[in-house]
């Protein structure tokens, strides 16, 4: 499907009056409801895709707010009790001089989720338009792939919290337990991933000018 090098717009299944099965790839004539091979429902374009995208996206954004307000980690040691939010933790890390870790956490916990919100929102917004130049369409495809690929890595924060909480349980000497922000953050990541999955990339194809 490498269309990048082709100046000519590719013929889409819909333009050809066909419907491609999204699971097994069998092409069926337009109007067929289910795939003759795998039985999965056939849609030329997934119905309600954008609605789902928007819904998951908004839910993810909503959950992301407490994930940043509430403490991510409660750290109890002999000498101190510390509760850190995501941003607070990043600032602490910078103050402690751990710039690399700070950057990693910042990228994973702040940059990527917010980037995803922005990208998904952009894609969902962009497909409603008509006649988008091919070059932009190709960028949109790339963005979609990146978002879908990278979405799972946003969970690295949650993994860290989960692992620390499980490992650092030394009674009164030191203990770490997850805060409510951890759950929110995990939800947020999950919802943005669902939002990304809910997006039907074939909608981008529809943005080709109808020249034929």
């Amino acid at each position, binding site marked *: 499907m490498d269309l990048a090098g082709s100046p000519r717009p590719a013929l889409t299944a819909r333009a050809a009056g066909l419907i491609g099965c999204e699971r097994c790839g069998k092409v*069926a*004539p337009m*109007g*067929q*409801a*289910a795939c*003759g091979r795998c039985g999965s429902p056939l*849609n030329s374009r997934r*119905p*309600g895709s954008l*609605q*789902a995208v928007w*819904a*998951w996206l*908004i*839910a*993810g954004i*909503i*959950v992301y*707010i*407490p994930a940043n307000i*509430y403490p991510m980690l409660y750290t109890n040691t*002999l*000498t*101190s*009790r*510390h*509760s850190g939010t995501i941003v607070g933790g990043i600032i602490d890390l910078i103050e402690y001089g751990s710039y690399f870790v700070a950057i990693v956490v910042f990228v994973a916990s702040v940059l990527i989720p917010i980037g995803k919100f922005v990208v998904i929102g952009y894609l969902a917004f962009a497909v409603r338009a008509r006649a988008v130049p091919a070059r932009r369409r190709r960028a949109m495809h790339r963005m979609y792939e990146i978002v879908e690929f990278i979405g799972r890595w946003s969970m690295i924060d949650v993994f860290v919290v989960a692992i620390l909480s499980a490992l650092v349980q030394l009674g009164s000497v030191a203990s770490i337990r997850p805060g*409510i922000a951890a759950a*929110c953050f995990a*939800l947020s990541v999950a*919802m943005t991933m*669902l939002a990304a999955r*809910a997006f039907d990339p074939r909608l981008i194809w529809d943005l080709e000018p109808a020249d034929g």
Partner: protein
Amino acid sequence: MADAGGPAEMDVRAPRGANGRLSLVWLVPVAALAISLLIAWQTYSQRGPLVTIDFENAAGIKPGETELRYREVPVGVVEDVTFAADLSSVRVAVRIDKEIAPYLDSGARFWVVRPEVSTRGISGLETVLSGAYIEGTWDAQIEGTQVAFRGLDRTPFVRPDRDGTRVILRSADGGQVAAGAPVLYRGIEVGQIESPMLNDDGSAIIMNAFIEAPHDRWLTTATRFWDTSGFSVSLDSAGVSLNIESLAALVQGGVSFDTVIEGGEPVAPGHLFDIFTTEAAARESLFTTDIASEVLVTAVFEGSASGLSQGARVIYKGLRVGKVQTVTASLQQVGQDRELRLLAVLALQPARLGVSADAPPEETMFLLQDAVRDGLRARLTTDNILTGSLMVEFVETDEWPPRDIDMLAEPYPRLPATVSDVSDFQATAAGVFERINALPVEEFMTNAISLLANMDRLIADEATQEVPSRIVALLDSTTNLVGSDELTAVPVELDGLLRDLRGVVADVRDGGPLEDLTASLATIDRITRNVEQASVALPETVTRVNALAGTINDLPLQDFLTAATDLVTGLDELVATEGVQQLPASVTATVDDLRGLIGQASGFVGSDALQAVPAEVQGLLGDLRGVVAELREAGAVGDVASALDRIDRITANIELASADLPQTVARINALAATANDLPLEDLITTATELVAGVQTLVASDQVQALPPAVNAALTDLQALLQGARGFLNSDAVQAVPAELQALLGDLRGTLAEIRDGGAVVNLVSAIERADLIAADLQRASADVPGIVSEVESLAQMANDLPIEDLVRAATSLVTTAEGLVGSEEVRQIPPALAAALDEIRVVLAELRTGGAVENVNGALQSARSAADAVAQATNRLPQLSERLNALVGTIETVVVAYGARSDFNSQAVSALREIRQAADAVESLSRAIERNPNSLLFGR
């Protein structure tokens, strides 16, 4: 496509109007929103109010971490730390749990718990690791919630929520009590002192004291606090006691309290108590405060009451019952006059008299009235002998007549008073100290030191060490000597010797012709010349003696005479005593007796028998003359002449010896010089003191008692004389002349017989032998010069003798004797003397009564028989002459033996040498005495 089985049946359905309807997926963001909102709402709803607490500083406080705890449970977290508007304090914003917040009212206290180490222990140790936290405390009442507080600067010593009573203590000096010091009740810690601080005007220290709940019920208005800080050491008859209330009290100080009397009322929190310095003061203090129930009476005291001050104690049977409120002077009507008297107003505590404090004053007065009727009186007495302060004491005795309290006296009823019992200790003590001051302690110490030094030297001296043994040896020798047969035989021998000598001399006298006497005189003349030569040195001797006399003249004889005069005065007084006055009478009587005795003797002499005695003697002399004539005829005189020749030579020898006399005189001269140099002054001085001592002795009663004893002795003597008179009157004595006459007759007969017999011839031969004796004597006299030189060296020795030292020693001896005279023993001598006189009297009495006269009588009879024996013996006189002859021969050999290098000579020389050694010994003895005169007396 149909050949191939035909295409699958088209399942064509109309597309669902997806774009037209809302998808169910929108439920997800709604749910997410709902959850978020739920979280937010929950957070907000659980969030309590933010309160601010101002602290002095924010040490250890971290926003977001530091907790606020209530009973060690976190109820809030510090959210922010800022400054107050004027930067005067740190404002800590604390988010309080919602449930707790309403309880925070004006009673809430907040402080920062930090590690703290104090004498009372270590607190807040857990905050070393966990960091400080804010502790808060408040009551359980929800009222007046507020959100701004002022935090305490430090941990309060008593948690505000503890039950108990907080009272205020006031002390003049806060140095003893530190914050947190314990409050003790009967030794148990029941509370704590909070921070002491100065009161507003800086005149006292005030401090809050918190008494914990079970114990604060002991706090009443009758409670007194006192300081038990540190430790107290008390010294009393029971010994030394060290009292430490508690270790904390030792370090931090502390106060104790007790309710000293019953009847106090419970106190409200914030009641002000004073801290007294001691428990005793605290207990005493009741009398200064319980003014309301005091009963005032007065007492008027005579005399000075300079030690009675306001506040002095009033005690009754040793118990304090009140105090002196005021001391004023008051004009009192005493008889006709008005006198200024001391009026003391006494404030009595009815409770101390056994009357309830609530009872009306009349009851107390009634009690006092009864007591006064039973003899109770007020009097001044010494409270403190050192300060001289006085107190009022109620004493009661049955001896005093019953009196009443003057109930109408102004200003208060008057108690009868009695004589003060005030001992002026200060004056007495001052007198004692003055006397002690006046004592010549310095001098005494100096003398004592020198005495000790002298004693030390003396005791350490070897000679001293040897003295006792020497004395013992001396005593032994003396005992042996006295007890020896030889000594006992000496008198007998002496007697015989004298008898022999008499015989010899008689012989010599009879045989001496005049010619030889002349030669002898010539020799004697030379001797005299020698003596004259010697006398040349005599002027010097005289000068010396003169100087000696001058020295003696210079002696402080005045003092001595004064002392002697005093002595004489004392003696005069003694003489003036009745006993002495009676002495002349006794003496007169004695003399009378003597006169009578003499008269009798005169009568006795005048008796016929005695008158005949001269005739007899005359006849006897005639016979003797005849004998001498015979002797002359018999050539005895020639023999005598030769004897005189010998004697002449003897005198020549003596002359030779006398040549040495000048030297001897010179020695004596030096001796006189030495004597001149003697420290006789000291001796006299000491003697003077001795005389003074004797005087005091004479003045003593015992000496006064002597005259009567002497008197009695004289009486006895008188009786004895009377006895003697009686003796003379006796027949036996009267018979003596006749006996004497007969004796003389016998003697005459004897002489006649001698003349007739060959006695004279024998005598001549005896004289010849005497001549030989003289020759021997001449030889012997050659040794006289040697003897003289020995004497001279002896004089030299005497000259060399440390007479000075001896005199000094004698002086000190006299000093000691003086002390001895003054001693108790010497005082007892007069009684002993009296006793001796008594004994003499007894002896005289025995003499009188014991037949002494008869014994004399017997003795005379024996003499008569002895005369008879002599008469018989003269019959054998020729035999006697022969024997005499033989005796002279013996003497001759004796004199020969006396010659040069004879035993006698060497014996004499050795005797002189021994005398010299004795002089040496005397010298060393005198030195020893000089070192310590007292040794003579004390035997060391």
